[in-house]
């Protein structure tokens, strides 16, 4: 292993010298995007409010929790998630954040279809859905704010 490293060290150094001479920088992740970070925050709040309102203002026993009454909000939130997915997808080197958005969108559509099919949603399932999306948005925020690292060199 050490022998191999010694053999490749001149090549690695040569490449680094070339990069340094040209003033080049290595890039693995895109730069932090304030607009995307704000949209993640806003969408997370909207989803949280959606489930909290459903839990507080409706009951599973009567028709106040039927799918039709929430359809507009489902569509509006899905449009926001689609927008986030596309904004992430078009950024180069952004596969990880794109995948997080894709998973969030996939689960949003799945839970929407479940509500539509059964036309009801228990309190427990509302709490579970709310928790699942809260965790996913947290992962999305961690991924976006992680890109700030490249703008803050160590002291």
């Amino acid at each position, binding site marked *: 292993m050490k022998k191999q490293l010694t053999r490749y060290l001149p090549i690695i150094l040569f490449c680094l010298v070339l990069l*340094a001479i040209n003033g080049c920088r290595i890039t693995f*992740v895109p730069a932090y995007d304030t607009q995307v970070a704000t949209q993640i925050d806003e969408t997370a709040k909207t989803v949280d409010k959606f489930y909290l309102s459903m839990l507080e203002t409706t009951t599973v026993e009567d028709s106040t929790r039927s799918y039709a009454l929430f359809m507009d909000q489902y569509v509006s939130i899905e449009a926001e998630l689609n927008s986030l997915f596309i904004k992430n997808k078009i950024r180069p080197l952004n596969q*990880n*954040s794109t995948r997080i958005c894709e998973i969030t969108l*996939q689960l949003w559509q799945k839970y929407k279809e479940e509500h539509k099919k059964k036309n009801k949603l228990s309190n*427990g399932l509302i709490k579970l859905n709310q928790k699942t999306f809260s965790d*996913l948005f*947290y992962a999305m925020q961690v991924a976006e704010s992680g890109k700030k*690292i490249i703008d803050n060199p*160590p002291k």
Partner: protein
Amino acid sequence: MSIDINKVIADMLAAIKGTVVDKHEKIESIAKQFLIQNKETLLLIAELRISGELDDEDFKSRMEDQKLVLEAQFNALQVISKAIAQQAANAAIDVLEKAIITVVKGVL
């Protein structure tokens, strides 16, 4: 004027180490937070299965969803790891660049 390659390499390694050590705690605290979140969700899924709000099929489906959440969390950790690697590599290149500029200035 010549370049002291051993010193340059030592400085480059110090720059890489400084970057990685500096950010190690950040990854650890986020990973711990993810673990706490997953524990809470799994407990909630178990409670809902016990209370009957989730039947067998729904329970399996929710466990599959949890795998996707885990995948999302790993993706988030990967972004941070990549950002740290990028910063470390560029810190090393900066050291090398400065060393080369110093030598070139000495020659000219």
